[in-house]
């Protein structure tokens, strides 16, 4: 990973809500925890020494339970919330040093946001909603109309241009929210629990729309969620927050294979391991061909099991996307990989 891959760099970020936040900051830096701080200073610790590197053109998921500070973190990136202390670099520019005018410019051109409760403008039509980010840049109406229409079409809402948000279903409203965020052509997309308010089927549909779009657009996306399945489905990297502190920030496979602490293992204990763990995470590295069939290294265990069941004794050969052999998997590896780590209970589920 070269330095140029990193688009957003968050350094030593602290956020403390309440009066006397400077005094509280010193206490927190001295190691005081969230509960003690609330008791002593009547301040709420929002973010505690967050360091995060966000890679260009990737989807960075930030995960945590409610109250863990993930929505607070994402709002720091476009300064909807001002930090108590710390540094946020976007393209090597410190966004905390921006004046109000520069900040407005920055928000118009560099970042756009999708919200959990959609936050559409109820008095504007779908077309006006999608074109909002462009209209406030004083782009001529004919131009923003055209660009907005393109994005409405892209999210599959053709024919709904003149509808008001109140006339659309939740899923459709969030498509409008997505189109509105994409319409400004900003490089960075902030998504604050964007799909959490949708029912499972629609949510999965929206995730697919997002992944499709990402394949084409290569945005840098910061995606907040509390749903691990969602995080694993769309995340290129996953950061886990707890009580305002970063617990783990790594490759999704690593989160499952090597959870940093009990909190993370708790998080991952209910997932279907066979469906998310990929071959490369459990293979034995080797560069010689094995007796069994050849599979890609990002194939999930469930699919490998299907292939291996035909001739269980032959280990499969693993190759990377370029066709180079990188390892092998035997049946025993497969069983070991699907098993939950020992410390997390031994109940066998159906």
């Amino acid at each position, binding site marked *: 990973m070269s330095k140029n891959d990193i688009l957003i760099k968050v350094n030593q970020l602290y956020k403390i809500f309440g009066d006397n936040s400077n005094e509280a900051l010193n206490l927190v830096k001295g190691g005081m925890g969230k509960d003690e701080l609330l008791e002593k200073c009547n301040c709420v610790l929002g973010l505690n020494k967050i360091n995060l590197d966000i890679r260009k053109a990737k989807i960075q998921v930030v995960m945590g339970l409610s109250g863990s500070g993930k929505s607070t973190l994402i709002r720091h990136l476009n300064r909807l919330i001002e930090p108590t202390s710390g540094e946020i670099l976007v393209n090597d520019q410190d966004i905390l040093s921006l004046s109000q005018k520069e900040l407005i410019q920055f928000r118009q051109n560099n970042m*756009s*946001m999708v919200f959990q409760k959609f936050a559409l403008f109820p008095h504007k039509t779908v077309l006006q909603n999608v074109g909002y980010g462009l209209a406030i840049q004083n782009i001529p109406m004919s131009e923003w109309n055209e660009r907005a229409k393109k994005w409405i079409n892209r999210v599959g809402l053709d024919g709904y241009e003149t509808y008001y948000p109140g006339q659309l279903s939740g899923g459709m409203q969030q498509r409008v929210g997505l189109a509105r965020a994409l319409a400004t052509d900003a490089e960075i997309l902030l998504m604050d629990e964007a799909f959490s308010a949708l029912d499972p089927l629609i949510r999965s549909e929206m995730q697919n729309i997002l992944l499709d779009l990402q394949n084409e657009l290569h945005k840098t996306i910061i995606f907040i969620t509390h749903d691990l399945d969602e995080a694993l489905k769309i995340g290129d990297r996953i950061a886990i927050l707890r009580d305002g502190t970063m617990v783990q920030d790594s490759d999704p496979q690593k989160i499952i294979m090597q959870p940093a602490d009990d909190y993370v293992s708790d998080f991952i204990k209910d997932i279907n391991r066979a469906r998310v763990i990929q071959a490369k995470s459990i293979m034995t590295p080797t560069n010689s061909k094995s007796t069994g069939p050849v599979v890609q290294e990002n194939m999930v265990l469930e699919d490998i099991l299907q292939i291996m069941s035909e001739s269980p004794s032959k280990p499969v050969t693993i190759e990377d996307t370029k066709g180079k052999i990188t390892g092998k998997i035997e049946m025993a590896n497969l069983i070991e990989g699907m098993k939950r780590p020992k410390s997390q209970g031994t109940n066998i589920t159906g």
Partner: protein
Amino acid sequence: MDWFFNFPSMERNDLREFKKSVDFTFTDFTRSYGADIEGFFEPLLMFLVWFEKFFINTPWPLIILMILVFAWFGSRSISVLVGTLISFLTIGYFGMWEDTMSTLAIILVATFLCISIGIPMGIAMARSNKIQALVVPILDIMQTIPSFVYLIPVVMLLGIGKVPGLIAVCIYAIPPIVRLTNLGIRLVDKDVLEASDSFGANYWQKLFGVQMPLALPTIFAGVNQTIMMALAMVVIASMIGVKGLGLPVLRAISNQYLALGLMNGLAIVVLAIIFDRVTQKFGLRMQKYRNDGKD
């Protein structure tokens, strides 16, 4: 124990001196600045006079037609339209046309004045908690102080006439529009404002693109209340020289003319109902997007 049963009040002489000095100060103020202040309000007077003349001199069928167009534009309702037509025909038939036109003129000018002062004031209040803390008590005073009390300084300053009447009406009628503008803007969904912020909207773009449109139904309820309160002041305003439906009512009170009082009083009520229905229907139409096909 005398102080226990009789309130220890100021000496009678001191009290009289105190009142006198307040009176003299204000009289001095009136003498030195009265003419300037009157000059300041001169354009307003011209506007009001022109408006009144326009209403009285235009042939009545044209006026009724105009009112019907206004009612239709506001309410889009046949029943309101028919009601308006019958009411104005009846008012005219009972010989109250000219007074009604005068009242209409002062109400419209007062409403216009209240809106053009009240809405910016409400916006300022919504923007700053300090301004809100300052203005709210003033509004409370304006709404609760007996109107006769502020008639005194107004008349001392400007004498008897249309302008002091107009000012008295405005003092009484402006609080609802200020309050409801403030409230309407403050009630706008924070999520929506955050969205607007995240796309880089500046203060004015947020105000006119998001806050005002979403607050409009509430603001309109304020306009409606302002009109109603202005109408309620018509009789009191007539005491300081405003022509219109209030004057006959005043005459009826002092001479115990039941029919005269009742007729003119009812004409005021009819005006109030028409204004109310039209503006309310208009306000409802403005928020139609809110309840359309939500699941």
